[in-house]
C-alpha cells in the first residue's frame, strides 16, 4: 500500500514535469514578430511614421546632421573643446569618430525603414486608395531625402532599395554617384506623383507634393542640371501654396511652425512626452521627440557654445542697412550681438558679456526668446526647416542665371531681399554679368541661410573648393579651411564600416 502510494507520487512528479510538446514554445511578450506585421492599413501607417522617426537621431537632426552641414561652412566655426565637433568644421576628423559613423547609421536606418514600407505597402489591401498613395509617397520622399543627405555627406555609398532578405544582402558595394542620384530623382518624382499638396490636422507636417518637388529641384541643382531644376522650382512657385513669411524670424521659432514658407520641416515637440533623448540605438518607449541642436549651438553660458558665427559673416550682414536704416532683421534673428536692448534668455546682452562686448553667438533655432533661462535641459521643440520657400526662390534664381536668364533671376533675389526690408536693387542686379550674378546670389544665400545647413553645399556646388582664388577667400573668411584637403568635401566612410564590409573603399582624401 505504502509502496504504491510512493510510486504514484513519483509518477505524478515525473509525469508533471515531463512536459507538453509546446513547453519550449515561447513567444516574445513585448512586441510582435515582423512576420505578423505589414498586414493592415494601420500597420502601413505605423510603418511610414517610423521612417520619420529616423530623423530624430543624433546622427540625423537631433544634433549631428546640423553640425555636419553647418560647421564646414565659412559662416560657421566651432569653438568646441570636443574634437569630434571642432574637427568636423576643419576637415580633420579621424576616420573612426562617431560623427561619420552616426550620420551613416542613422540616415541608413531611414533608408531601411523606407525600403520596408515601399516593398510591403503594395501588398496590403486598402479601403482608401488615397491613403495608400499618400503613404507610399511619403516613403519614397523619405527614402529620397535620406539618400540625398547620404550622397552629399559621403558621395560613394551603397545603394540599397530592397528590404534585406538574407545576410548576403548586408554587404553591398558602393554605387557610382550618378546611379545614387538617379535613384534620388526617381524617388522624389514618385513622391511628387503620389503626395497631396497639403494636409489638415492631425497630419500637418507630413511630406507634401511641394516638398518632393523642391527636393527634386535641389537634387538636380546639386548636379548642375539647371533646366530640370528650374522646371521643378517653377512648379513650386506656380503652385501658389507657398509664400514668404513677413517676419523672417517666424521661420525659426516654435510658434509659427509649418507656416506658409515651409516646404518641409522635421517636427520636434516638447509636448508629446518622452524623457530620454534618442541618441543612438533602437527606439524605446521613453524617447523624447526633441532636438539637442539648441543646447549645442547656444552661446555659453546658456548652451555648449559648440558653434559660432564667423566674424566675417557678421560683417557681411552689416554691409547693407534696411530701407529704414536699421540692421538687417535677419542678423538679429540669426546672431546674438551687442546692440541697444539686446537680450538673450531673459538677460541683457551687455550685462552677460560685459567683459566681451564683441561677442557674437548663435541665435537662430534657439529658445533665447522663449522665457526659458537657458538650453541646459537639452530639449528644444523648434522644428528644423529643411527647405523654405526663400531657398526655392534663390535656387530658381541660380538656375535662371546659369541658364542665361540673369535679368529674370534678379526678380527672385529681390523678393527675398524685400522681405528682409533691404532696398530694391532688382534693376541693378538685372544688369549684372553671369559671374556678377553668381556672386550676388552667393551673398544673398549666405545672409538668408546661416545655420540652416546650406552654405557648405553651396560652396561645394559652386566649385569654390577647386578654385584657388575662392579657396583663399574661404580661408580668409574662416581659418578652419586651412586644413581642407581635396577630397574632404565628403566625409570619410566610417572606419568601422570599412572594417566590417570588405566591399567598401575609403573616399579619396583620407
Amino acid at each position, binding site marked *: 500500500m505504502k509502496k504504491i502510494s510512493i510510486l504514484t507520487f513519483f509518477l505524478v512528479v515525473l509525469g508533471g*514535469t515531463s512536459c507538453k510538446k509546446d513547453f519550449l514554445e515561447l513567444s*516574445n511578450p513585448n512586441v510582435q514578430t*515582423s512576420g505578423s506585421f505589414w498586414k493592415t492599413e494601420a500597420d502601413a501607417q505605423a*510603418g511610414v511614421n517610423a521612417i520619420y522617426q529616423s530623423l530624430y537621431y543624433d546622427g540625423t537632426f537631433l544634433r549631428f546632421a546640423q553640425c555636419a552641414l553647418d560647421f564646414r561652412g565659412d559662416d560657421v566655426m566651432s569653438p568646441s573643446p570636443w574634437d569630434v565637433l571642432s574637427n568636423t568644421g576643419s576637415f580633420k576628423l579621424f576616420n573612426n569618430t562617431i560623427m561619420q559613423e552616426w550620420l551613416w547609421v542613422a540616415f*541608413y536606418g531611414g533608408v531601411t525603414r523606407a525600403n520596408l514600407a515601399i516593398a510591403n505597402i503594395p501588398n496590403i489591401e486598402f479601403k482608401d486608395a488615397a491613403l495608400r498613395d499618400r503613404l507610399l509617397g511619403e516613403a519614397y520622399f523619405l527614402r529620397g531625402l535620406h539618400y540625398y543627405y547620404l550622397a552629399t555627406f559621403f558621395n560613394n555609398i551603397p545603394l540599397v532599395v530592397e528590404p534585406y532578405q538574407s545576410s548576403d544582402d548586408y*554587404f553591398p558595394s558602393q554605387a557610382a554617384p550618378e546611379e545614387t542620384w538617379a535613384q534620388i530623382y526617381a524617388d522624389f518624382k514618385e513622391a511628387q506623383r503620389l503626395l497631396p499638396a497639403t494636409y489638415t490636422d492631425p497630419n500637418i507636417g507630413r511630406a507634401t507634393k511641394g516638398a518632393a518637388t523642391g527636393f527634386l529641384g535641389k537634387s538636380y541643382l546639386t548636379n548642375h542640371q539647371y533646366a530640370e531644376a528650374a522646371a521643378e522650382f517653377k512648379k513650386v512657385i506656380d503652385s501658389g501654396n507657398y509664400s514668404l513669411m513677413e517676419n523672417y524670424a517666424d521661420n525659426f521659432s516654435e510658434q509659427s511652425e509649418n507656416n506658409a514658407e515651409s516646404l518641409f520641416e522635421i517636427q520636434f515637440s516638447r509636448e508629446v512626452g518622452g524623457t530620454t533623448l534618442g541618441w543612438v540605438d533602437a527606439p524605446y518607449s521613453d524617447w523624447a521627440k526633441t532636438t539637442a541642436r539648441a543646447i549645442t549651438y547656444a552661446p555659453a553660458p546658456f548652451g555648449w557654445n559648440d558653434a559660432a558665427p564667423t566674424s566675417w559673416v557678421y560683417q557681411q550682414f552689416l554691409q547693407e542697412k534696411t530701407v529704414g536704416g536699421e540692421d538687417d532683421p535677419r542678423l538679429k534673428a540669426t546672431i546674438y550681438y551687442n546692440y541697444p536692448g539686446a537680450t538673450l534668455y531673459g538677460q541683457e546682452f551687455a550685462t552677460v558679456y560685459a567683459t566681451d562686448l564683441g561677442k557674437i553667438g548663435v541665435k537662430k533655432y534657439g529658445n533665447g526668446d522663449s522665457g526659458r533661462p537657458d538650453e541646459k535641459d537639452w530639449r528644444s521643440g523648434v522644428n528644423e526647416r529643411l527647405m523654405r520657400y526663400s531657398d526655392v526662390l534663390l535656387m530658381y534664381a541660380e538656375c535662371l542665371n546659369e541658364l542665361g536668364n540673369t535679368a529674370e533671376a534678379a526678380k527672385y533675389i529681390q523678393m527675398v531681399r524685400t522681405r528682409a526690408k533691404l532696398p530694391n536693387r532688382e534693376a541693378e542686379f538685372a544688369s549684372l554679368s553671369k559671374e556678377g550674378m553668381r556672386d550676388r546670389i552667393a551673398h544673398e544665400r549666405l545672409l538668408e541661410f546661416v545655420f540652416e545647413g546650406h552654405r557648405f553645399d553651396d560652396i561645394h556646388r559652386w566649385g569654390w573648393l577647386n578654385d584657388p582664388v575662392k579657396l583663399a577667400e574661404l580661408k580668409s573668411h574662416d581659418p578652419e579651411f586651412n586644413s581642407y584637403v581635396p577630397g574632404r568635401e565628403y566625409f570619410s566612410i566610417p572606419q568601422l564600416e570599412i572594417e566590417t564590409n570588405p566591399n567598401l573603399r575609403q573616399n579619396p582624401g583620407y
Partner: protein
Amino acid sequence: MKKSTKKARSNAFQRSMLVALSVAVWCNPLVPQVALASTPTALVRPQADLMVRGRITDSRGDGLPGATVVVKGTSIGTTTDADGNFSLRIPDATAASAILVVSYTGYETTEVAVNGKTDLSISLADKTEQLGDIVVIGYGTQSKKDLTGSIGQVNVGEVSKLPVSDLTKAIQGQVAGVSVHSGGEPGAVPQIKIRGIGSFNNNNPLFIIDGVQSPVNDVPTSDVESIQILKDASAAAIYGSRAANGVVIITTKRGKEGKMRVDYDLQRGWQNIVNRYDVANREQYQLLVNEASANAEPALPVKPANDPTSPLFVGNIDTDWQNEAFKTGQLLSQNLSVSGGTESAKYNITMNHYDQTGTVVGKGPNYTRYGFRVNSDFKQGRFKFGESIGYTKVDQRFMTFVHTGTNLGYIVNAIPTLPVYDENTIDGFSSASQTIHGSYTANAIGFNSLKDSKTDRYRFIGNAYGEYNIWDALKYRISLGYERTDWRDFNFDPIHDLGWFYVNNIAKMNDWRGSGYTGTVENTLSWDKIVGKHNIALLAGQSVLQSAISRISGHAEGFTEPYFPVLSNGTSGISVTGYEEQNRLLSYFGRAIYSYNNRYLLTATIRRDGSSRFSPQNRWGTFPSLALGWKLHNEDFLSGHPHISQLKLRASYGVLGNQEIPPYQYEALVNPYAHAVFSNQLAVGTTQVEFATPDVKWEEKLSRNIGIDLGLWDDRFTFTAEYYNNESRDMLLRVRIPESTGVYPWKSPYVNGASVRNSGFEFTGAYNQRSGDLTYSIGANLSTLKNEVLSLGYGDNPIAGYGAITRTEVGGEVGALYGWVIDGIFQSQEEIDALNNASPIGRYQEVLTRPGDIRFKDINGRDAEGNLTGAPDGKIDDDDRDFLGSAVPDLYFGFNVNLAYKGFDFTALANGASGNLVFNTIRAGLESGAGWDNYAANMMNRWTPSNTNTDVPRVVMFDPNKNGRASSRWLEKGDYLRLTLVQLGYTLPTSTAERLHLSRLRVYVSAQNALTFTKYSGFDPDFGNDGLFDRAIDQGNYPNRPFTAFAGGLPNPRGFLVGVQVGF
C-alpha cells in the same frame, strides 16, 4: 517485531558500513586509519555500561584538543582534553554496535565502530589533504582518486581568508586554467573564465549552488563548504547544454553530527588605493595648455585662467585631485554559525553581515550585505530529506557620474587650477567654466557627493531534495531548485553645476525595479553497486528549467527642495517603461561510471537539451562525453612502490553546449516605439529595426583533455599535469553587420558566427610536510593559454573592437591589438616636405603635420583594383595599421604557502599573469597633448624646438597629426605578480580557551595586496574588462552594475585587516 526489524536494519547497516569502510580503506590509503592501529585488548564481556577511552590525533599522531566524540544516533558525547584524550561511558544497549562519530574543525569527520574495544586510537585526516578528497561532481560525489575528468578544487580554507565581497574574486589564482579579472571596488563583479575564451557571448561559467543554477554574486564566502570547478567535457557534460564555459559547483556548509557548535568570526579592515598617475601641477599644466593653444593653426586664444595678464588668472590653486578623491575604505565582516545534529537530523544555520565602503570620497561605492542560511538534512529509514535556503539582502551604492564615463579618468585629468569645493556655488562644489578654464573637467568628487545611485538586491537561493532508497542500491531523488532576485536600482540627480558641461537644472530620478527567477525540477535515479571487481555507478535523470525576468522603470523630473526623491513628487517628465522575458529548458541525461579492479576507470555521459531560445527545428542538442582513466599505482608493478603513492593517467573527450543568448532571437521582431510627431501630436510608429537569424542554433564546444596525477611519499607531494585542446564551434555572438543596414552594432543579430581553439597546459603541485611542531604546505599552479580564431561570421570578416584598436581575425587571437606603428618624431619641416613631395597625393600624413609630431610607418598600400599590396605607398592611411600584440595572457599562475607552528599559523597567497598588452586609456588621455584637461607630468619632456631628443611629441590643440591615434604608444605590458594575502594567526591553547568558556579562539592580522610586481603604469594591471574583443582596454573603470546602468570601477585596494574567530 519492532525490535527484530530494528536489529536487522542495524545489522544491514553495519554490514554496509563495513563494506564501505573496507572499500574506502582499500581505495584510499589516506582515509583515516580507523581503529586498526589500536591496541587489541581482550574482549570485554558486555556489562551494564561500557567505558571507552581513547585518543584523537591528527595524521602525525599529535593529540587534538577539543575534538568532539559522539555516539552515533545518540546525544552521548564528550570532547577531548588538551592532549586529545577522552573517556566516554556507553550504555549497554548500544555498546556492542556503537559507532563513534569524531569531528574536529579542519579535519574529516570520522566514524569508528567500537566493536567492544575500550581503548581506541583514532587519527583524523586533514581536510586540506587533496588527493583523498571526495569531490562533488554533477548530481553526485566521487573520490578524487577515481576522477577521470578535469576538476579543479578551490581551497576554501584559504579563499575564505581573502577580504573580498565576491566569491569569484577569491578564486583568482587558486585553480590552474581559471582566470579571474576585476577591479576592486566593493561589490565588483569579476569576469571568470575557464580555459580561455570558450564563448564570445557569455563567458561566465555555469554556477550551481547547492544544485540551483544561480548567480554567484552576493554568496557569502563564509557559507561555502566546497568549490569544484569542472573544466572538461567529462566533468561538465552532465550539465551539457550550459557547460561550454565550464561549471562551478558550490556547496554550502551542512550540519554534522555532534553537539551544537557556535562559531563567531569578526573581521575589520582598512583599504586604500595606493597608485597614482603622475600628472602636471598648476604651473606645468598652464605652460602645456598655453603652448598647445599657441601651436594650433590658427593659434587659439589663451584661456583667462591660464593667462598671467588676465584678472582671472589662477595662480594660487594647485589641486591634487587624486589625493583629494581617494580615502581609506573600511571593511567589517561578521559571521555567526550554529550547527550540529544527530544521525537523523542535522542543521547548520548561519547569519552574516558584510559592510565595505569604497576608497573614494563621496557616497559610493559601498556594499553592505546581510544574509542568513538554513541547511538541514533529515533521515528516516529509506527516506532522506533536506533543504538549503539562503537569503541575502544587498545594499550597493555606486560611484556616481553624469554619463557612462571613466570616473577615474575624470579624477585623474581634472585641472589643478580648480579647487574641489566652492561655497559660493549652488551645490558647494567648484565648477570649471568653458570661457575661463576651457576644460571639460567634471568635479567627480562633487558628482559622487551629490548624486545618488544605488541598488538594493534581494536574492533567494533555495533547494529542497528528497531521496528514497527504492531497492538495494537503487535510489530516486527529486530536487527542487529556485533562485529569485528582486532588485531596485535607484538614481537621483539633484540640481547641480559641476562644470560647464555638467549642469543639471532640473532634479530628476529613475527608479528601476525588477525581478528574475530560475526554477528547476530535477528527477534522478541512481544505482551504485560493487560486484566483485566491478564498481558501477549509474545515473539517469530528467530536468525542467524555467526562468523569467520582469522589469519596470519609472522616471520623474522637477523635484523641488527639500528633495523627497519618490516618483510621485516629480512634477514633469514622467515616464514608465516595462519589459518581460522568459525561457525554458527541458533536459534528459545519463551517466555511467565504471571501474574494474580499481585500476581501469571509465566515465560516459550524455545529455540532451531542448531550449526555448531556438526555433523548433534547432531546438534540441545532444552532448556526449567519454573519459578513461588508469590507476597505475594499483598495478602489480607499482603497488607497494616505496615512493609512488599515486600515479593515474586519464583522458577525456566530449561535446558541451551553450545557449546563452537572450530569448526570442531567432524571430525578427518589430519595434513599436518608433513614433513620430505630426500636428504636435504623437503618431505611433512601428517597424523592423533589427534583424534575426532564424537558423541560430546551439553553440558547441569540443573538449579534449589528458591528465596525469602523481602522488609521492604518501601523497606528501602531489602533482597534476593536464593538457587541453578545446574547439568552440558555431559560437553564438552578435557579429557586427554593416551599419548601412541601419542597425546599431550592439543590436547586430546573433549568429553561430565563429569558431575558436583554446589550448593549454595546466600544472598544479603541492608539498605538505611536518617536522616537529612545524607543519607547512606549499602549492603552486600554472597554466598556459593559447587562443586561436579558426573562423568568424559572415565570410571571416575581422571583428573590430574599441575604436578599431582591437581586431579579431582568423588565424589570430581574440581581441588582438591593432594600430599604426611609430616611426619616430619629425624633427624638421624639410623632413615632412620631402615625404609630402614623394607622396602620390602630395601629403604623407596630415595637412597640418609639423615638426614634433609623430611619424608613422608606411607599411601598406593598394593597387589600382583596390587590393592591398603589402608595400609602402608613400602615404599614411588606415591601410598602414598592423597587429601590435596580444591581449590574452599566455601564462597565469598562483602560489600559496601555509605554515603552522604550535598556535601560530601563516598563509600567503599570490597570483599573476603575463604575456599580454594593455591599452592604457587614462594615460592616452593625459598624454594626448591636445586639450584643456590636465596633462601627464612627463609631457614636460615633450618635443619642442629646443628639446628634440625625446619620444614625446609636441603638444597642440585638436591633435591635427592624430598623434593620439591607436598605436603602440598606448600599449604596455600587463605582466604582474601580486601578493594578494598574507595572514598571520594565533590560536589560543585549548586549556586557555576553556578557561574563557570557549572551545576555540583565534586572532589574526592580514595584509591584502601588499605587494604588486608590475611595470604597468596604470592604477592596476588586474582591471575589469569585457574579457573578449576589448579585454586589453583599461578604461580606468568598467561597467559592473549587474542590472542597469554603468558605474565606476576602482583599482584593487591595498588593505590591512584584523580578525577574531571564536568557537563556543
